């Protein structure tokens, strides 16, 4: 396992940065309906944190901590939440994907028209969908990178 990963300096700094990047990713996801960003952008940031770990520690070591099936399941949950919220729109209100939470208690505030500072508790189903898509993108992109990194490490005679 000597050849796996980079120097201890890089590994330590990556370990410190990892939670920060995840927090930033979470911020971008949750403020998707107020500021530039959203589920995909935040998810890509979060996935980049995982990719950083893969580069710093080596794919084999990361795989011991978290298997790609787990990441794939994480992604599946994101997808299930997305479509479940969309189906809830069909059950609770009128149509598939309808924004049934506007005017409700959770995320239901309607901001004043025109320029404003932004209310986090607004947007109806948008923040929930942002979160679902964020989960999907983090899980999906890290799974892809992990699988591809593992595959390029494999011995050639393994074919």
């Amino acid at each position, binding site marked *: 396992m000597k050849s796996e990963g980079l120097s201890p300096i890089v590994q330590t700094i990556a370990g410190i940065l990892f939670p920060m990047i995840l927090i930033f990713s979470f911020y971008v996801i949750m403020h998707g309906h*107020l500021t530039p960003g959203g589920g995909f952008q935040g998810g890509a940031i979060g996935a980049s944190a995982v990719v950083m770990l893969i580069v710093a520690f080596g794919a084999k070591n990361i795989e011991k901590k978290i298997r790609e099936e787990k990441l794939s399941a994480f992604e599946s949950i994101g997808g299930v939440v997305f479509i479940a919220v969309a189906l809830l729109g069909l059950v609770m209100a009128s149509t598939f994907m309808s924004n049934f939470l506007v005017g409700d208690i959770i995320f239901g505030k309607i901001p004043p028209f025109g*320029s404003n*500072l*932004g209310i986090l508790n607004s947007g109806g189903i948008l923040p929930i969908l942002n979160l679902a898509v964020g989960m999907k993108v983090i899980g999906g992109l890290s799974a892809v990178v992990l*699988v591809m990194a593992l595959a390029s490490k494999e011995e050639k005679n393994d074919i």
Partner: protein
Amino acid sequence: MIYNVPFLAVVVLIAIGAYALLFKRNLIKIAIGLTILESGVNLFLITLGYREGDVAPIYTNLPSGRGMVLPVPQALTLTSIVIGVAVLALILSLIIRIYRKYGTLDSHEMRRLKE
């Protein structure tokens, strides 16, 4: 029509991508060509939505008296970028597999399908 220069840039990008697809034999270069082509199309969608002097369509801290550019092309571009990422991931995985199998990336050398 000097103002249509962004559209011309789009065409040039698409042409570069198409050139790589048509004339290159290396699979990685073909994938890069496809990506450039896709960037061209994405740039096209974005330029379609631009309105002169306007800002991004977000009401949070909107400067007063400014209009907004069209939001739909930006949403379409976002969708198209994610689709591009997904397709590229699949293509690159296929290329890794092919390289493992044949030991070459040249598309002409692996014509084993012609029986």
